[in-house]
Each structure stands twice: as C-alpha cells, then as structure tokens.
C-alpha cells in the first residue's frame, strides 16, 4: 500500500461512491453526508472532553505534588466516565421560585454554543465541518452566546451568589472579548482571509518559521491572556470564585444540568486552544504534511494538546486576580496594546517589504511592543505600590 496516497479526503470520495452505488441521489446524498459529518464532529468533541478532564486533573495534580485520579481504570483513566455516570443518575434539585424555562435552557445553550464552534475548526487540510468565508467572525459570534448562557443561569437560579456570578460573567467575558477579537484580527490581516483553513494554509512558508506565533508573539500573548479569560480559567476564574461566591452562576445546578456546564467549560477550553493552534501555531502544518495529508490530524491534535497543557499549567500555578485588577488588565493594558499593535501591523504590511523582511519587521515591532508594554505595566504597578504605601504611612509631626 502506498502511504503517500492516504488522504482523509479519499475516504470521503470512497464513501460517496459507495452511497451512489446504493442508488442515493445527490440532494439526499449531501444531506446524509452533512448528518454523518455533524454526528462524527459531536462524537469526537464529546469523547475528547472525557480525556481532557482526566488530563487536566492529572496535570494539576502533578504540578501541585499530588497523584490525581488513580483508582478507576488504568491510571484513573475511567474516572471521568464514572463521574459522568454518577451525574447522570443524580437527583436534580430545582430551587424554589427559580425562573424555570430560563433555568432549564441555560445548560443546553452552554453546550450548544461550544458544539457550534466545532464546525469551523480545520483538523487537517480540508477536513473541516464547513470552511466558511467568515470563519473567525463565526467563532466570535458563537463565543458570545456562551456569556448569555452563563448570565441566564445566574439570573434564573434565584440565588444571590449566582446572580453576582452572572454579573461577573458579563463584565469579564464582554471585556475580554475585545482584546480577543483584535488579537484574532491580526492573523486575518496578515493572511487576508477569515477562512480557518485558509489561515492554517497561510502559515506553511519557511517550514514552521512561518507560524504566526514566531512572527507576531505580542498578538499571541494578547490572544492567550484573552483566551484564559474567555475560557473562564484561572487566573481569570472570578465568575466561579469558590472563596467569594461559592461556585458562581452554576451554584444551584445539580445532576445532568451541572454536567452540561462542566462539559461546556472543558470543551470550550479545547476549542479555544484549537483556535489558537489554527491562528498562531500553524494549524495542521508540519513536516511532510504536503505529501501525507493524514499527518495533519496528528499535528493538529498534538499542537492543541500543547496549548491545552499550557492553559492547564497556568491554571494550576497562578492565584486568582481581584475583579478590579482583572478589569484594569483588560481595559488599561490589553485593549490599548491590541489597538497599537493593529495599527502598527497594518502600516508594516502595507509597506510592501520583500518576503522574509516583512516578517522580521513584524517580529521586531511585536517584541518592541511586548517589552515596552510590560515596562509601562511595571512602572504603573510601582506607582500604585508607592501610593498605597504613602497612604498607610503615619504622618510624623513636623518639628
């Protein structure tokens, strides 16, 4: 068997031929293909969550010098399955006077919005649910549905902790959406397309050096910080801060409804790492991928796992921010930084430098912004520390 001929699209062609031989005409055939693709997509997404929860618990355990789940199955691999079965058979407690319709819709909406974003993630060259020409905008649009689900849950629970959690969701997710959108716009600016597959294709030059993470590290940094906030992960997990508001918006949820929020949270983390992989880490690009396209899937999943690992690493090591620090970090640091970066990137790309030099110019500009931005942030921090010290120093009587 010639391995270079193995292409995931060949499987699709064979599948189509088999169905046509069975006497299924094109309009029905297309619909069947869509249904099969959608079910496969959901199957992959939902099964991955089982592994991801186990992985994140293991990573956090190892970093914090614990063992993590190790009882159910080999290495505790079946722990998540056991948890899912337990949640499925748990009694569902609805608080009195809850807004019933909104209360029951919220977990379904939370799962719905994450599953919808799976449609535009390119697993390999052309292996994508729907390569929309507005792919990035589609992700942003469905990403903001998530904050609505959390707000609905917080509002409908008839619980004050949940309500405060819901408000925090709005404040945090809306604020961090702006740096996230600007950070996603910069690869779009460089690639000249919003198709997710096109964005991955555009990073194929110079054998791995063309990945946007090397060319625009500052945009990647903004994206990563905004991803942590959008994924409701530490250090930005204020909306479920258990020491302040117990569990935030999902405090009154139990049983399967809680399981849906949990699933949406982990799947959202993975989807965000997949978006980061596509926009900045080259997507399915890798050695020999032009000769053996099936390798793209391997590279894509490896890269998303690295990105997910970084997110889990940050979650296990960083303490939680205060809400004013979080808002300041977004509005006074990330948003101005993203605006300056966007303007500068547009000017540099319009200069029309020859191929390797425009990338180098972008790299210099990004590094300058990153270093300058953090220098200014340090200065501001120093000033704040001095101001608070002055406020607390007792005034000595002058002699």
């Amino acid at each position, binding site marked *: 068997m010639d391995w270079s001929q193995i292409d995931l699209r060949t499987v699709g062609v064979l599948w189509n031929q088999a169905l046509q031989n069975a006497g299924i005409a094109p309009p029905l055939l297309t*619909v069947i293909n*869509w*249904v099969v693709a*959608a079910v496969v*997509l*959901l199957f992959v997404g939902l099964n991955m969550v089982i592994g991801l929860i186990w992985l994140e618990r293991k990573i956090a355990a190892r970093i914090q010098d614990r063992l993590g789940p190790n009882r159910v199955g080999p290495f505790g691999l079946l722990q998540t399955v056991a948890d899912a079965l337990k*949640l*499925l*058979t748990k*009694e569902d*407690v*609805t*608080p*009195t006077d809850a807004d019933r319709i909104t209360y029951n819709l919220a*977990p*379904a909406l939370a*799962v*719905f919005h994450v*599953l*919808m974003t799976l*449609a535009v993630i390119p697993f390999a060259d052309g292996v994508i*649910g*729907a390569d*929309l*020409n507005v792919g990035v905008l589609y992700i942003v649009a469905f990403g903001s549905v998530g904050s609505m689900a959390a707000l609905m849950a917080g*509002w409908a629970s*008839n*619980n004050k*902790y949940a*309500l405060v959690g819901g*408000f925090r969701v*709005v*404040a945090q997710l*809306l*604020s961090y*959406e*702006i740096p996230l*959108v600007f950070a996603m*716009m910069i690869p*779009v600016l460089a690639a*000249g397309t*919003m198709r997710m597959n096109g964005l991955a294709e555009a990073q194929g030059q110079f054998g791995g050096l063309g990945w946007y993470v090397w060319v625009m590290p500052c945009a990647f940094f903004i994206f990563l910080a905004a991803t942590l906030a959008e994924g409701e992960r530490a250090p930005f997990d204020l909306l479920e801060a258990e020491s302040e508001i117990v569990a935030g918006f999902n405090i*009154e949820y139990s049983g*399967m409804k809680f*399981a*849906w929020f949990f699933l949406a949270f982990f799947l959202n983390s993975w989807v965000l790492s997949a978006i980061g992989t596509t926009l900045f880490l080259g997507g399915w690009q890798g050695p020999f991928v032009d000769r053996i396209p099936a390798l793209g899937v391997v590279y894509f999943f490896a890269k998303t796992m690295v990105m997910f690992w970084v997110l889990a690493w940050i979650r296990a090591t960083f303490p939680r921010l205060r*809400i*004013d620090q979080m*808002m*300041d970090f977004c*509005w*006074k640091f990330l*948003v*101005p930084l993203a*605006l300056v970066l*966007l*303007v500068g990137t*547009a*000017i540099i790309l*319009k200069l029309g430098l020859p191929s390797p030099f425009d990338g180098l110019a972008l790299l210099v500009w990004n590094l300058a912004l990153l270093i300058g931005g953090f220098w200014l942030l340090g200065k501001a921090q120093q000033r704040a520390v001095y101001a608070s010290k002055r406020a607390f120093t007792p005034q000595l009587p002058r002699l």
Partner: protein
Amino acid sequence: MLEQYGFIAILALIAAVFPFVGLAVAWLLRPKRPNPLKNSIYECGIETIGETWVQFRAQYYLFALVFVIFDIEAIFLFPFAVAFNQLTLFAVFEAILFVLILAVGLIYAWRKGALEWQ
C-alpha cells in the same frame, strides 16, 4: 459557498437537540424526591433575606456601554482586514484614522474614570 450553511443548520439542529436528550435520559434515571427544605435556595445554611433580583451596580452598565462601541468597531474592522491586500494606502490610513478616533474615545473614558472599578 452558501450550501455550507446547510451543514451549519444540521449541526445546529443536532447540537440543540443533543443536550435535551441527555437531560431526558437523566430524567428517566434519576430519583425524584423533592422537599421544601431541599429545594430552598443555597445560602450558607441560613434563609435568604429579601428579594434576589435586586438592582445592581451601574458599574457593569458602564463597561457594557464601552464594550458595545468597541465591538461595533471590531465588526467594521473585519472586512477591512480581509480586503487589506487590495486596499490602497489611502483606505488603510482611513481605517487607521477610524481606530485612532476610537482610541481617543477609550482615553476619554479612561480620564473620566469610567474604567475604574470601585
């Protein structure tokens, strides 16, 4: 290009039905023994005092207002980013001017203290 939205529609249908299937299975399997104490609102062992749906701080509203401005800016900038390679230098400077006007708005909100969390 438009037929891709057929896939999106089918995925939306399945993704919308799927969570309810899970809830239905749980509804069949789970015990149902509610009582008034169990269904009371969680509040550290004491009863909630007063109405839950109270007025909230205007601070959240201010941030939402600033967000709306920037989100609309982002929507305008995405077509600019896609068509960037075909744009003339003049159009690029116009877009940059647009960003700068909004940056002035951000600086104004900042100086006015709208971005301070009290």
